[in-house]
């Protein structure tokens, strides 16, 4: 292949300033938030418009070079990790809010807009963008759509897919299409819904129209502490069974509490085995009875203390612990591997017990901090990647954790996606015909197989190896410089 010619064509599209081919610069983009798999792209391009993206896609198709879209690279399943030799399209320059329509409660944005930036803009006008992944201060709305991201407040407000009305996409042919609409009833198959969460394997998103949600009038945040994890889990199940829908309901186990208290002193009792951070929002008249209901259920399940934040400062303190939990794990081990298996909410206590057994078997600590109200787990396998063999052991331990979720009637991923991370376990989740139809539908949309290959659908030939001390891949089809 004429590599120089290819790079020149890309340069013609975006301009010299917005293409990187220098090996040192490329290394910056060799993975997303899942750092155990890496790949060096042949080029990184930073387009500024749908038209430029379309030309990039066409060029890649002409030269048969794979392409991968990347927002902020905060994803945790390797969705934005480049196939070695592929072209990485980075949306840093496409970060404009194009329209704010408060009358119709909509915002039109480019994919590189940072999630939290949109809410910051709209909050003073009485609205916010509801999906709130933990990385919302950095992650982009385009990336959220590609992964169908969740977040703590999805319990009440739904996932990203519930908040996107329309997307402009560039199809693998380079053609531009609009999926969905400003209104709710659209013709034909729900391609909007089907493309959201497709992890960049169908199309590249270049513009989105999203819903804006009125700000809640009041917010109540409370902390229920337990001396048994099972009691905390039963509280969650019973609150859900009672039909109460808090805005968020997060569970943290004792390892998490210990790490958080060591690092940020959020005020969680160190002697608790688990705490539930519960947030209610809405009209004061509506959340009063809910608060009583949740307190009653917590007390029935032996909660040792129940505290309601009395000031905004206290509320922020309680959330600070939850938000800093992952960083705080550093005091326990140098590295953690965060999974996101999800189970029916009545099975929480059962799977946490299984995690304990798995942890003992692999001699690796597993901590739990998760969106309990959704059954959306975040077991974190703590390990030391400097110890030979421990990374592989952590990965195998993680796979065992995911299989436990599947056995409990759950799934591999509730919000991070499959990417590279869980691609092998897809065969544990789905039978052959179901996996095959996913593959066939993907092939029908992306005939040349150039859209983010090696992700989501298992293929023996296309699996990223674990990168230990550098990016090595045995992928075919990519262009290497």
């Amino acid at each position: 292949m004429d590599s120089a010619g290819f790079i020149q064509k890309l340069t013609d599209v975006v301009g010299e300033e917005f293409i990187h081919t220098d090996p040192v610069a490329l290394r910056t983009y060799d993975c997303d938030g899942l750092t155990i798999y890496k790949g060096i792209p042949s080029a990184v391009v930073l387009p500024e418009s749908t038209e430029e993206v379309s030309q990039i896609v066409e060029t890649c198709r002409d030269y048969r070079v794979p392409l991968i879209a990347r927002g902020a690279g905060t994803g945790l399943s390797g969705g934005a990790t480049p196939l070695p030799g592929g072209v990485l399209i980075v949306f840093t320059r496409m970060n404009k809010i194009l329209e704010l329509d408060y009358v119709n409660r909509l915002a039109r944005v480019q994919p590189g807009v940072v999630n939290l930036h949109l809410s910051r803009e709209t909050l003073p006008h009485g609205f916010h963008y509801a999906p709130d992944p933990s990385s919302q201060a950095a992650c982009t709305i385009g990336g959220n759509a590609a992964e169908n991201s969740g977040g703590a407040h999805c319990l009440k407000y739904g996932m990203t897919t519930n908040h996107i009305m329309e997307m402009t996409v560039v199809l693998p042919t380079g053609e531009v299409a609009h999926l969905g609409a400003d209104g709710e009833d659209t013709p034909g198959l729900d391609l909007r819904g089907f493309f959201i969460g497709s992890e960049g394997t169908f199309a590249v998103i270049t513009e989105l129209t999203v819903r804006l949600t009125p700000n809640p009038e009041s917010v109540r945040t409370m902390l229920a502490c337990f001396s048994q994890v099972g009691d905390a889990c039963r509280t969650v199940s019973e609150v859900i069974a009672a039909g109460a829908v808090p805005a968020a309901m997060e569970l943290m186990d004792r390892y998490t509490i210990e790490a958080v208290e060591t690092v940020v002193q959020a005020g969680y009792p160190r002697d608790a085995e688990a705490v539930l951070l519960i947030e209610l929002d809405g009209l004061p008249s509506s959340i009063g009875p809910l608060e009583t209901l949740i307190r009653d259920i917590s007390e029935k399940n032996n909660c040792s203390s129940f505290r309601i934040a009395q000031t905004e400062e206290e509320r922020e303190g309680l959330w600070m612990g939850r938000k800093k939990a992952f960083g705080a794990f550093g005091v326990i081990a140098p590295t953690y591997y965060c999974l996101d298996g999800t189970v029916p909410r009545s099975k929480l206590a059962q799977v946490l017990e299984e995690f304990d057994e798995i942890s003992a078997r692999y001699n690796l600590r597993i901590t739990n901090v998760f969106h309990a109200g959704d059954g959306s787990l975040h077991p974190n396998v703590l390990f030391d990647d400097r110890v030979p063999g421990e990374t592989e052991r952590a990965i195998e331990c993680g796979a065992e954790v995911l299989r436990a979720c599947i056995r409990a009637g759950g799934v591999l991923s509730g919000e991070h996606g499959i990417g590279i991370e869980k691609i092998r376990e897809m065969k544990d989740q789905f039978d052959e015909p179901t996996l095959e139809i996913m593959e066939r539908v993907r092939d029908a949309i992306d005939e040349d197989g150039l859209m983010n290959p090696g992700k989501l659908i298992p293929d023996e030939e296309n699996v990223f190896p674990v990168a230990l001390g550098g990016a090595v891949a045995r992928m075919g089809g990519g262009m290497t410089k």
Partner: protein
Amino acid sequence: MALKLDSFAQSIEADSGDSVLLSDERAESFKLGGQTPSVVVSPADHEALCRVLARANEAGLAVFPWGGGTSRGTGYAPEKYDVALSLERMSKAVEFLKDDLTAVVEAGMSVEDLDKLTNAEGQTAGLDPPNPGASTVGGTIIADRSGPMRVRWGKARDRVMRMKVALADGETHTYGALVVKNVTGYDMNRLLSGSWGTLAVVTELAIRLYKAPEHIGALAASFPSTDTAFKAARALMASPLMPVWAEVLDDARIASLASDDGIALPGPVSLVASFGDFEEGLNDQLARFEEILKTESGDDILRLDDEQTARLGPALADPPGEDFSGPETLAFRASGRLDQLPRFAEATRRAAEAGSYDFAISAHAGSGVLRCWLAPEDEESSPFEAWRVFSSLCREGRDEAQARSIHLRLDSGPNSLKEQVSVWGEDALESAALQVMRNIKKTYDPEGTLSPGRFVGRL
């Protein structure tokens, strides 16, 4: 073809021991786009249904999955119609996991029966197709029939947790799981929801449930015009209140509710919205909605109690009866941003005038969807003229992007009209998007066995 049909019918009869022969009366009840099927098959379970499909597929027959038949007016006439595949015998509850707010049911269960099952435990599926006694859960999902309650519970497709389907060749797939948050692989549930029976036959569904509100109530107010009522509805939607539904009705729709359902709402135009909450929250929401209505110059404010509210909700999902139930009645739908609703209402008025029709309007004022029904005034009524005026006025003066984002659908009308217009509003779709849909259809159903010719782009 007749031979193939005969041998298909014989093999099904041999397999099930049931007759698939049709009486004229029975054939009539499966009529679609003026056509009747040659055979109706009602398998007892998923496995039997897969066998029926595989045989029909092999014989090159066209199969239309059939729930309650309540959406039969929508879509193009079938390209061909050999077999009606009725889900009437597959109507059982499989599993009711009340602690997980999940109901697993066979696709042929009626929405009314699902409501009975879940309401007994104080839960609701929040599905509101027209005629819930006849509409099936499978049909409601596969046609994504979402009514006024979508403001609170989302669209019908949002309710699907897991789906068991049979492909045209009889293969079984299961998508999703009994969890409320799931990004494991492609979202096949969303691909199938709203696919109108063109990709696969859904046989079993796990439906996400919600706690039914402790108390419900509604307020209605009269407005001098649809414009003013829509403005009040926008004020409601911009507030922190959480309506279960919010509907704007014109005088004809108000009259039909009075005569069909015995519910008297104030006119000439009504905005009526319901709320569900604990008692304190409900009273607060109603009081604050009343303030909004007064600020927006709403008059004749009427409070509906819980019984009236519970009766009005499903009635709003139904089409108006009596005056708008004749075979020549047209039903149009327009969907766009909330502030487009007045334009859609005006387009309805002018379309009715141009085509010599009486009309009734009911709009999901919190969702940007307007539905209207047109009954012929006399023999001079022209359905084509009515649709032409409606579709051009809904998009008039819009730039390309805005026009593309307004979607129109002919919910029902005569075949003569359907032959000439874009029934599903696919004229607003780019060819590239339509091509993706065609490619997916071909992947699922390469022989074109399932529901040929009826859906968007005559897939």
